[in-house]
């Protein structure tokens, strides 16, 4: 018999190397404490049967647990309690906890495997204003109380974080401001009882703009139909960019004026 040396010629692998899975909670704890795995013997000495029996399984040492006819009542337990039921229940609980922990470990490993690393902040000098503000915001909210007691940075605006947590619709609390509720309900009744329709400034402005656009288009269309398809196409694209900008501006101006 001869010992072969390590292969010097590198050959390509069949499949890519497996990704190392993160250690489970027990493995982390064991590494911390320095606990090492002890190999258990498969056979155990059974005193009663006076022979080596297996640790678990068919004819195990200590007898078949299903045939255990005696269950001692422990010292501080309730005498009325059914001990057999207690043992069965505890076994079921242990099995369930084990299964839960196993699934948790799997989920942790899976999450670690598919975790997308956060976009790294550029080295100094290259950060943009938005990047910095975003990172500062994330850092502020990453406290146990979600940033509520976090002091503001010197140049930061004093905007409190949205209590709704980014939700768009807010619902008022049921039992709060009675006066506000009363006024709101009365205003609603007034609107319902009104004969004439209410004027919504924004909608009126938009409608007017659309009308103007349509008229302009009709007029231009008559002129361009003689020129042909090409003219109409160019005119259409140009029109949309200009007019939509104007609409947006109008929208912003009007509410400011009305409110």
């Amino acid at each position, binding site marked *: *018999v*001869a*010992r*072969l040396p390590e*292969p010097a*010629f*590198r*050959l*390509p*692998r*069949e*499949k*890519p*190397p*497996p990704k*190392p899975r993160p250690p489970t909670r027990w493995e982390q704890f064991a590494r911390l404490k320095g606990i090492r795995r002890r190999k258990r013997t498969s056979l155990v000495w059974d005193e009663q049967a006076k022979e080596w029996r297996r640790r678990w399984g068919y004819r195990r040492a200590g007898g078949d647990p299903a045939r255990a006819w005696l269950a001692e009542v422990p010292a501080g337990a309730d005498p009325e309690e059914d001990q057999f039921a207690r043992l069965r229940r505890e076994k079921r609980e242990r099995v369930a906890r084990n299964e839960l922990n196993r699934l948790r470990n799997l989920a942790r490993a899976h999450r670690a495997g598919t975790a997308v690393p956060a976009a790294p902040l550029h080295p100094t000098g290259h950060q943009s204003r938005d990047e910095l503000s975003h990172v500062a915001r994330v850092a502020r909210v990453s406290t146990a109380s979600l940033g509520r007691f976090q002091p503001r940075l010197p140049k930061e605006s004093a905007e409190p974080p949205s209590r709704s947590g980014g939700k768009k619709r807010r619902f008022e609390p049921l039992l709060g401001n009675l006066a506000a509720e009363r006024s709101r309900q009365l205003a609603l009744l007034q609107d319902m009882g009104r004969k004439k329709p209410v004027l919504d400034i924004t909608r009126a402005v938009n409608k007017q703009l659309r009308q103007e656009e349509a008229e302009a288009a009709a007029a231009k269309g008559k002129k361009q139909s003689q020129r042909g398809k090409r003219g109409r196409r160019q005119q259409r694209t140009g029109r949309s960019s200009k007019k939509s900008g104007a609409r947006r501006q109008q929208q912003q101006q009007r509410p400011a004026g009305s409110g």
Partner: protein
Amino acid sequence: LICCYSKPKTKRAKRFLEKREPKLKENTKNAMLIKGGNANLTVTEVLKDIYAVKKPFAVLYKKKNITRPFEDQTSLEFFSKKSDCSLFLFGSHNKKRPNNLIIGRMFDYHVLDMIELGIEKFVSLKDVKNSKCPEGTKPMLIFAGDTFEVNEEYRRLKSLLIDFFRGPSVPSIRLAGLEYVLHFTAVDGKIYMRSYKVLLKKSGCKIPRIELEEMGPSLDLVMRRTHLASDDLYKLSLKQPKALK
């Protein structure tokens, strides 16, 4: 484990899938020997002989498969996935490329390298009448000719041939079991493959006298087309996990 269709319901299925998943220390590479649409007697005999050499780490497909590996690799990749083989030998014959043999390997069930060789002369196992060595013997590979070091394509071919004929990698070996020698020579643009059986004869001192007896398949090959993996893909396939080092 197991992303694919469903979780294994039996232990046997689980073991089957565990055998195929990527591991730190990999299994011995299996080879699949496939016949092309128009495979003649020579090519079939070559495939059968190589199968005999590579047993049990080879799969010989009996039916003809009408594909062209150089144009479309999907059917090869499908076979590789189904039979968990990372090496393949595809034999075909047509007027333009007579007695064609495509030897190749896969990485992650995708084709890594493919080299097309033409068979000029072939002497099969049956034709050489003497005793053969037992099935599954790990051969010793000898590469003669500096073309194998100098030429890039020949270097890849050497690596491919080593991969193909290596067999299981073992830490120690019984000296009496070293019976089979495969000798490759690259000369004048041709590649000669010869197989010899090692006979250990009695000699005066402790080291026995070695005699080589010609046995087994001998091939005269000519390199035709190649489809080699790009450098970075090749480097990626060579990467070994840190745990092994």
